[in-house]
């Protein structure tokens, strides 16, 4: 019976150490730096030539008024902004149905010396806001929080 209790205590201690260790790793290990799903236009601009030619994800807001869509050739050009910096994006094919001015987006592709981001995949990033449409309200307003609120909390 006593060896039984001893074994149980041992298991308990080991479990505790594993749990505590995992927490410490998360808190102190600096994982946060490696878990960015996308880069902001400011970050990508700052990387400069270092980022050229590599496949990266760029995220931000579709700069209002920047969308140029050619339905005949399925050619899409727009700028992604984080409020401070803007990057020109070129994409082929029809975008997801919620794509529009002011919408949050993440594009996967390559940035080059031509300062144009060639997008291979375009994703919409929806904010945590859910609103019923109100008469006279501009839909873009809801996406201001997407960039400003980005990791601010």
């Amino acid at each position: 019976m006593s060896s039984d209790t001893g074994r149980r205590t041992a298991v308990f201690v080991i479990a505790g150490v594993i749990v505590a260790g995992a927490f410490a790793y998360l808190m102190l290990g600096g994982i946060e730096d490696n878990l960015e799903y996308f880069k902001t236009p400011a970050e990508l601009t700052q990387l400069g030539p270092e980022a050229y030619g590599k496949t990266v994800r760029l995220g931000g807001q579709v700069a209002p008024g920047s969308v140029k869509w050619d339905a005949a050739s399925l050619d899409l050009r727009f700028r992604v902004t984080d409020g401070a910096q803007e990057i020109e994006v070129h994409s082929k094919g029809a975008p997801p149905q919620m794509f529009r001015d002011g919408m949050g987006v993440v594009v996967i592709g390559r940035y080059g010396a031509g300062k144009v981001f060639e997008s291979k995949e375009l994703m919409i990033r929806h904010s945590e806001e859910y609103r019923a449409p109100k008469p006279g309200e501009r839909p873009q307003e809801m996406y201001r929080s997407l960039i400003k609120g980005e990791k601010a909390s």
Partner: protein
Amino acid sequence: MESVVNRAATAAPMASREVRWTTVGVAGLVLLVAAQVYGVLTSPPDRDMGHLQKIMYVHVPAAWNAMLAFLLVALASLRYLWKGRLADDLLAASAAEVGMLLTGLTLALGMIWGKPTWGIWWTWEPRLTSTAVLFFMFVAYLILRTFVDDAERRAQWSAVVGLLGALNVPIVYMSVRWWRTLHQMQSSPMTLDSSYTWPLRANAVALMLLMAYAVAHRYRSALMTQTADELMDRLALKGTPGGSRA
């Protein structure tokens, strides 16, 4: 170790307890139907995604209740390691089953929402990845249980794996705040129109009642199975010569 047989025997008013839990289950089911009807009939389409927004009424309650179920796994596992009562292990396993199901539901509905909203079914971003890890850890937990025959050893290993799995819950929850994700942050009453908040809350409560009922039901049947196994073992040990063990 305290015998489950004794425990089942001392829990005398099993029948009245069963009636109580059935009431909880029926209440949950009725409330769930009412909350779904309420949500579909009263909440307006979202200005971007239209009625796709309705997925929120199942996706979010499923995620919340999965987290509650895994919290129960953690508490029961801890108590097992502390006191060594097999009943706590069975409670942890019951909660793990329900939590895994609800996590699967969360993932499936999230993908169905993600395709028309984001434009993709799946991507390896922190919220999605951590949720998938949570899901598969509890799949592994339940598989592990079927591989270990000795009840006490199964309980010890399960408790450790269950605790490790439950450790993922705060990570999943905080992932959208700690890291830059494709998945949005948690909505709050500030970011959600009031026409959406009440159906969401009603559905969450309904699913919580159903979750509690399901865990209680699985726990009770697990206790009975364990009791039957112990009685079989006792019978086998006493083993009257020529007696049947089947």
